[in-house]
């Protein structure tokens, strides 16, 4: 048993109130104690109501109380093991070439690649929705006895979220009850999820009355109430604004390492930088094949993105070495070099007084393959 740091106080200290509330809700959930959860929900409501700042002190005290409780250390287990899985559709030239993948509890896996390269196919295979032609797929720690149980433990949120009926809250109550939360615990879990995913103001609205972004949040809340072992999301950021994208991604990161119900997360997205920030590993899919896997493949050149009023000729005058290449996609330059690091490239640019509007080191990012 061990105690944990107090992320709520840390966030409050820096004025990150929204983050503090989310952290408080997470802490209360981790504590597995109904009274903590109830209190955190009330504080979250006070925060949303913007009544006064008294909630901050209460939140800090509550977080102290929760953090003083002993926590069982998280012991991740292997969730999914895919070896050489491939798929070909009848009557189509497309083929998903053999992919190897392993994921543990608490890990987030990003899947990136251009449209039509097999991301959704791979995700649907992993979710048990599509039959694989070759290879093997196993779920070592899901404790499932048959396909039905596996499908019950592996949640898949498609890009186009299926329509649901009735009120948002009803659907959450139903989902919570399905996963074994009955009576008071049911309402507690539903309220918690409404607060945690900022859905409370929309609880009594229907599908037609909420935006697509909130539909994504709702689907996430619904799925999380099921306590899945593995969560697979296909383009979850597609309908979200930039703030919501970052919030959802950090939430996913936190939920994955939840001590109460840890899970593995696989998500596909076009928002490379955002995904890479939270993912433990990223797979770049190209032409139906696994082009790059960040955990496994060795990186042997630096790549940066650069937006500047300078011309290509000016840049070529700076980077004369054969080991450095400059490309321009009509919007910005990408400079790759096997002899210079990203910092050295930046230093060269500054030294030659090149005006920089935008600079980003994408050496570790799969973004570099899009520029290739």
């Amino acid at each position: 048993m061990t105690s944990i740091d107090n992320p709520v106080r840390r966030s409050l200290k820096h004025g990150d109130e929204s983050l503090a509330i989310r952290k408080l809700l997470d802490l209360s959930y981790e504590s597995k104690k109904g009274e903590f959860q109830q209190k955190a929900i009330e504080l979250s409501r006070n925060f949303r109501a913007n009544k006064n700042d008294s909630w901050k002190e209460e939140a800090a005290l509550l977080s102290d109380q929760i953090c003083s409780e002993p926590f069982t250390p998280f012991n991740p287990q292997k969730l999914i093991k895919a070896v050489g899985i491939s798929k070909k559709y009848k009557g189509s030239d497309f083929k998903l070439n053999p992919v190897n993948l392993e994921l543990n509890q608490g890990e987030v896996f990003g899947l990136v690649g251009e449209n039509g390269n097999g991301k959704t196919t791979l995700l649907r295979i992993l979710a048990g929705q599509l039959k694989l032609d070759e290879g093997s797929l196993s779920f070592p720690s899901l404790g499932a006895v048959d396909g039905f149980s596996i499908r019950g433990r592996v949640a898949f949120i498609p890009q186009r979220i299926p329509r649901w009926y009735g009120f948002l809250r009803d659907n959450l109550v139903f989902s919570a009850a399905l996963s074994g939360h009955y009576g008071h615990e049911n309402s507690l879990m539903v309220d918690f999820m409404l607060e945690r995913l900022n859905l409370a103001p929309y609880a009594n609205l229907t599908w037609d009355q909420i935006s697509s972004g909130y539909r994504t949040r709702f689907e996430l809340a619904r799925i999380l109430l099921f306590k899945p072992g593995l969560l697979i999301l296909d383009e979850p950021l597609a309908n979200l604004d930039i703030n919501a994208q970052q919030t959802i991604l950090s939430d996913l990161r936190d939920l994955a390492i939840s001590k109460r119900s840890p899970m593995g997360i696989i998500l596909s997205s076009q928002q490379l930088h955002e995904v890479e920030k939270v993912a433990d590993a990223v797979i770049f899919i190209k032409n139906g094949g696994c082009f790059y896997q960040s955990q496994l493949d060795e990186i042997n050149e630096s790549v940066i993105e650069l937006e500047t009023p300078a011309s290509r000729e000016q840049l070529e005058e700076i980077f004369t070495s054969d080991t450095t290449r400059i490309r321009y996609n009509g919007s910005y330059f990408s400079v790759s070099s096997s002899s210079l690091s990203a910092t050295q490239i930046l230093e060269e640019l500054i030294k030659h007084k090149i005006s920089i509007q935008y600079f980003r080191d994408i050496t570790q990012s799969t973004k570099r393959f899009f520029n290739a």
Partner: protein
Amino acid sequence: MIRKLFSLNRPLVPSFLKKMDVRLMANYPLLWSLRVHLVLWYTLILALFTAGYFFLKPDDPRQDSEVYFPISVMVILALISTVVWLIFLLRFNVFKRFGHYKSWHACVSFTAYFISALAIFSLPFLPALIEDYRATQAFKPQEIVEEVNAMNVQLAHLTYDSLITEWYRDTVLVNDTLAEKGRSLDSESYTELEYSMDSAGYRKVVNRIYCGKRIIQGDSFQVLARNSFVFFEVPDYQFIEVDGRLEAISGVEFLRPEPLYFKIHKEHPNINLEEASNQYFEWMRKYSNPEYGLQYVNGVIESSSRYREAFDANTPFYLAQYRIQAVESGIENIVDRQFFISVYNKDVMLRFWLYPSFFLAILVWMFRHSTTKIFFLSLLVGFIVSVLVGVFTALFNLSLSESLVFQLMIWGGFLSLSFLSSNGMRNAIRGIGLNLTFLTVFFIPLLVHVIYWDSQPEWPYSYSIYSQAQAESMARAEWIGAVLVPIFLYFIAFPLYRNWYSSPEA
């Protein structure tokens, strides 16, 4: 939270049911998702409205019943209710969410669907039940029988001078060379056609069975020779003769011609005709169908041989005066209403109720446990297979048994498809096989029953024994089918559905 959930916009649902709805949703999601409580509630409301309307609607039980129109309306209403229920059932599905769902949950679902379907399909029976109740309240069966008997007695006294008093005679010659086939001692197979006239034209030539029956049923007989009899029957004074089923529920018997004959002739000298007339007219007013006028009288005389036997052909004014057909029609209408759903129609009505409910439950279960595409494909395939079986039967001139054996083989084919290894995939053929196997499993004992009875040699006993034995066998087959469905569901169908639905697609 419960208060907030009351905002569920469901019209005509009281707060206790809303509370129950919320509790079910949060504690028993499977039961909640089946919506049985709402189906039962709305059916109850609909039933109360219907009952209120039919209780308050002015109705004279002596008139012809117009219940078939409201029954049709209620059938349409029941179908609409079913569609609304199905739309609700599209929404929350524990099975399709891969929730905690075992074989016994599948059986609970099926039972809930059956209860809901029973409730929905009880609606069309309501108008007839209320009509029955109102007719029974207005005219008690015992009262009708007793007063019909009394009316017949009074009518005989009032028309005494015109009554035929001579007994009807029938001379028969027993000849066993007549074909025996199709004849039995059972009264239901007895028809007037089972004799021929001798060459002289005044004696019936009959076989021993016919003769024996006449000895039992006749009022009297005289033996002319070893094979020649004269049978006597009293004139029939049952002017008003109504449905004999009334005897069974009233416990009172109608006065038959023979006791009536002797009673009339014994009592007549002491009868006060004016009193009898007043009494009769009182009953006449009570029972006459108000839709009948005197203009029907001539038609009665022309169409009724019974009246011709009882009356002098020259005294039609009696019939007009006593409005016998109007009375008889009024009583027949009352009795029809009382017997629309009764012990006599019980089996038929029960089947009209149970069969659609049972199959709706099976269809709904199928719908909720397979994909929409496979569900409708299954129905289409089922229809096409039925047509093909008919065509095949006609083309090869198959007997009933052969055709049914063929259908059994087709069922075996569906069952095999259900077990078909699909390489771990959710394929359409297996889904269709599963659906059609489950849909038709109820019929298997019935098919066996029909094949068995069709293969029996000619029945050596009376028709009533035959039909009773057949009815019992059919009821047994239906019960076996009804028990087989949940057993099949628990042990075979659901595990297969579970495996099929969770398998990945191609």
